[in-house]
């Protein structure tokens, strides 16, 4: 029993998308630009050449927030979307009826339709691949050139993520919606 979360040192991110490709290969995510579990968002730069605002140009790596209070789970009619004992929000493909309600409900655009099973899919924190094999990092974390991500057990005070969160300021996305995300952006 763990309570998995992830801390993102997002200022390190260079928008290379190694994480996206690694996730696809590891987890058999089908190719296709809109079939992704993980992404990096970029804002259009502000200003007129050559007076551009460097500060306006940030890279925001993101993925399913593994909400503690997940709207997607709440709305699922068949409990296909559920919490694992490790606090990971997962979709049981056998139970998913593809009503797409969870896609409507997720405030982070974290879900997509997996075409071979025609069910909804999302980031699993690599629970069914790497973690199952006893590995302790996710694919997106391991591959990142600038080491943006730290994954780990929030309930273990000695885990690297707990230490990071204890020592560094951080924020979450769309906090006001009350979803209690478990992706923490280090400031």
């Amino acid at each position, binding site marked *: 029993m763990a309570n998995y979360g992830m801390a993102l040192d997002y200022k390190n991110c260079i928008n290379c998308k190694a994480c996206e490709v690694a996730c696809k290969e590891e987890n058999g995510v089908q190719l296709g630009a809109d079939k992704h579990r993980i992404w990096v968002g970029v804002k259009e730069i502000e200003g007129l050449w050559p007076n551009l605002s460097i500060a306006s140009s940030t890279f925001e790596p993101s993925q399913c927030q593994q909400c503690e209070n997940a709207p997607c789970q*709440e709305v699922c009619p068949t409990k296909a979307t559920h919490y694992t004992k490790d606090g990971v929000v997962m979709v049981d493909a056998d139970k998913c009826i593809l*009503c797409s309600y969870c896609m409507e409900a997720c405030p982070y655009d974290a879900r997509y339709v997996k075409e071979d099973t025609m069910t909804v899919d999302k980031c699993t924190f690599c629970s069914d691949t790497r973690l199952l094999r006893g590995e302790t990092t996710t694919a997106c974390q391991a591959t990142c050139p600038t080491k943006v991500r730290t994954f780990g057990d929030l309930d273990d005070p000695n885990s690297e993520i707990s230490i990071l969160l204890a020592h560094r300021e951080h924020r979450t996305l769309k906090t006001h919606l009350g*979803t209690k995300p478990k992706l923490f952006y280090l400031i």
Partner: protein
Amino acid sequence: MFVLAEKGMKIIERFIPMRHTDIRELLNFKKTPLNLLVAFTTLVFLVLFVVGATNYLIHGHHAYGVTREHPWGLMIAMYIFFVVSSTGLCIMSAIGHVFEVEVLEPFAKRAIHGALVTLLSGFIVIFLEIGHPLKMMIYNTISPGLTSAIWGMGVLYSLYLIFIVIEFFFLLRHDHKWAKRFGIFGLVVGVAAHSNLGAVFGFLVARPVANGIYYPLYFILSAMVTGCYLIFLMYGFKYKLNFPPEMQKTLVATAKILGLLLAILLFFEIWRMLTAIYGGMEDRAETALHILKSSPFLVGEILLGIVIPFLVILLSNGKAIKTMVFASLGGMVGIFFMRYDLVHDTQLYPMQTLKLREYQLPPTFIEYFPSTTEIFIALGAIGIAITLYYIGDKILYLETDPD
């Protein structure tokens, strides 16, 4: 086939009074231009349905215009369109035969028949939307997601179906006592199911335009409006605008109720827009402004769906019932846009506001246009509704009891 069907009907005939049980007779109707036009259109729609449904069965959701950003499309809108019609008719019927408002009693049976027909059409559409409908029936039962409005809707609409079938059964057998009892059940469950459908949207914290108490209330209101429009249409067609005096009284009363409902609905719409735009939530306000400027909203929802019928009623004091038949036709088009916009507008504002690929414009309001398959199925479903209605009309006694 025919023989079997006829045998079946013979059996049913023992329980319910019926008009014709001869299949060939079923295809017989007066060959007036209007009838022929309706018959032809219906036939075309049915063919489109077969084409669309086949395409969907082969290609699945690829055949639809839905995307990651806009997962719900025309199918959901159509489903809502039908089930709202059903609830509307059920409520209107109940006012007459459950609450015994006498002037409205004449259409009790026909309205319930309509409620049944539209509900079945809605179910057909939703079966072609849900990716795995059979799985749905299994897991809705053995693994119920009690917090899910869709689950609630599934359960309530199933119960509703059962209740109104029974209600209809007793109505047809002129068993008022039982019809009334089940009418009450049907009404309660129907209203619950229906407000729950509103909650499907209302619960979406992710979607500020939809989130809140507004939709559950608005749904009941607009359902009744839809019910009124459909009553005008059914009777307008049945009597070819030559209403018998009894009917005239009923329809004038209906128009007056409708006028009141429309006024409230308009009031609702105005406040929805005002709170959205000045409510201090940036994304909600932007979306609302976007909606406000769109023609499906202005022309469809507001003009056709509310303002024109309302003016007809207002200016004639509810007496222009012939005009109301035409206004109702426009009204139903407006109602369709209400449903379509509800689905589309909820998804307008992107959940992802940053661009994710190098060569891409930043996301703006999400666009969606139904695919041909979706349009075929949607029209087809209307064809199915008309066909079912026609059959019922042909074989059953849908008028008020002879007594």
